[in-house]
């Protein structure tokens, strides 16, 4: 088995595979949408795991910290990596945006066919 240091990354990967399976293998529009959501969770989870450090202090400098050089130094050495968090925030927004569009198209397809089942919908040739 893999060392403890890499197990979290691997678990994020498992989540990605589960999402991928739902997207590729399921025949229901809602399930496919859920698969995409799971993939987004997996990627965000992976990024936040990448950024974790030490004791896991949130990267926010408070007024008290700023007045106390000792504490500030310890904080700077222990706070988690803020950059992946900024990336995740963007990624959450992008995921939400994709989801809105996906739901809109799914509603429209439902209106045309009266079902979410892909096997009853697909007229298009591969």
């Amino acid at each position, binding site marked *: 088995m893999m060392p403890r240091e890499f197990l979290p990354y691997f678990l994020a990967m498992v989540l990605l595979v589960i999402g991928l399976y739902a997207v590729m293998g399921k025949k229901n529009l809602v399930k496919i949408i859920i698969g995409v959501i799971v993939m987004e969770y997996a990627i965000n989870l992976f990024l936040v795991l990448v950024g974790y450090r030490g004791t896991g202090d949130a990267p926010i400098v408070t*007024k008290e910290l*700023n007045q106390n050089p000792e504490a500030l130094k310890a904080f700077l050495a222990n706070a988690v990596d803020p950059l992946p968090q900024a990336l995740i*925030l963007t990624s959450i927004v992008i995921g939400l945006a994709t989801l809105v569009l996906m739901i*809109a198209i799914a*509603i429209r397809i439902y*209106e045309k066919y009266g079902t979410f089942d892909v096997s009853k919908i697909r007229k298009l040739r591969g």
Partner: protein
Amino acid sequence: MRGMSLIVKTVTRLVAEFITIFAVYIVLFGHLTPGGGFTGGVILACSFVLLTLAFGKDFSLHILSKRAAGIWDSVGALAFLIVALIGYKAGAFFLNLWAKPATFTLKSAGIIPIANIAIGVKVAAALFGGFIALAVFRRHGPGGYEEDE
């Protein structure tokens, strides 16, 4: 959507204002505490969604019509772009003007609070408009969004 029972309506009336105030706080103090424009905008949109669910869509559309939501969406986005272009004029795209280091006040972070407000307005309007468009789609038969021409 017709709205829900009296209890729900009463509670909503009490809670919605607090949610709105909380959203404004989250937007304004994004550079000092956790939160920020996007988060605050989503919370604001949540309070509109709550009103829609409790009182029906006519009530919330009375506060913010679909057309107004679309315009606020554009206005927020444009405001953010203008923040960037002011920096561009002064030397670099998104140059942080007016930054006052380490004072821990509302004005300390230059363009960041302004950009937060722009994003908050934008996101709240966009998500509210999107939710209304998605939620009322079926109730009006085919079609949810009106046409031009």
